[in-house]
């Protein structure tokens, strides 16, 4: 029997993986991908709750999250491209010159 709990746990695991990816990896593109994993984990929660409550709102919010994710990916990748042009590197540590 698959219950709401199962979906919530799965979503939590995915979210944890995404969080770990953002902090552990040193590649801008992988970090953006990890953010997508986190967004998807949240989407799964929305759809699962929507199903449990018998309402369409969960699916509609997923629609908005996807729109925001698309905008985020476009701007994020544009930033990555312009950063790469400056330093020929994708390591976020090489863009630390504003720190001090």
């Amino acid at each position, binding site marked *: *029997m*698959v*219950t709401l*709990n199962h*979906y919530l*746990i*799965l979503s*939590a*695991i995915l*979210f*944890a*993986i*995404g*969080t*770990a990816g953002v*902090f*552990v*990896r*040193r590649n801008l*593109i*992988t970090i*953006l*991908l990890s953010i*997508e*994993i986190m967004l*998807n984990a949240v*989407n*799964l929660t929305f*759809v*699962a709750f*929507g*199903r*449990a409550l*018998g*309402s*369409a*709102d*969960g*699916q*509609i919010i997923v*629609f*908005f999250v*996807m*729109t*925001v*994710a*698309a*905008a985020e990916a*476009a*701007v994020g*990748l*544009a*930033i*990555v*491209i312009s950063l*790469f*042009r400056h330093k020929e*590197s*994708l*390591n976020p540590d090489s863009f630390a010159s504003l720190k001090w």
Partner: protein
Amino acid sequence: MGSEALAFYAFGAVAIAASLLVIAQRNPIYSVLLLIASFGALSGLYVLLDAPFVAVIQIIVYAGAIMVLFLFVVMLLNAPHEETEYDERVHPLLRPGPMRFGACLALVLAIELWWALARGVDTGAFPGGAVTSVAVIGRSLFTDYAFAFEVTSILILVAMVGAVVLARRDDPRERRKPGER
């Protein structure tokens, strides 16, 4: 085990395994492809949750548009491998600064998860009467959520202009002629 539970565990396992491999890969092009596999599994889970519209949109928007964009950028930059410095070789917990923090955070999340698992209330089976009709979703989207919908369209426009401005070369003299390399 029913066929639904079997499908849930299969899709869930694929989603988790693929996501783990995404962050474990050195080569970003493999990361992108594994993430597509993960999104495919999530799309299957949405079908199990009686949300076929979200499942299809997931494939069209995520796998068909956003991930192609990622793949495009990875191919364009052609910097496949991460620089392996000393901190790539040591355990994440021993690395300096944000990485140690991130590893700790992931650890805390895992502990919290365990805690929640131990105390979870049984929510029982899903009730009947799921909203599967696209018409219902569309009606709600264009009435109750009309304002949010319009705002997201402006957001997309802003993002589009922003992406063009950011990715363009600043100095017109530096701009290469087409065909020149």
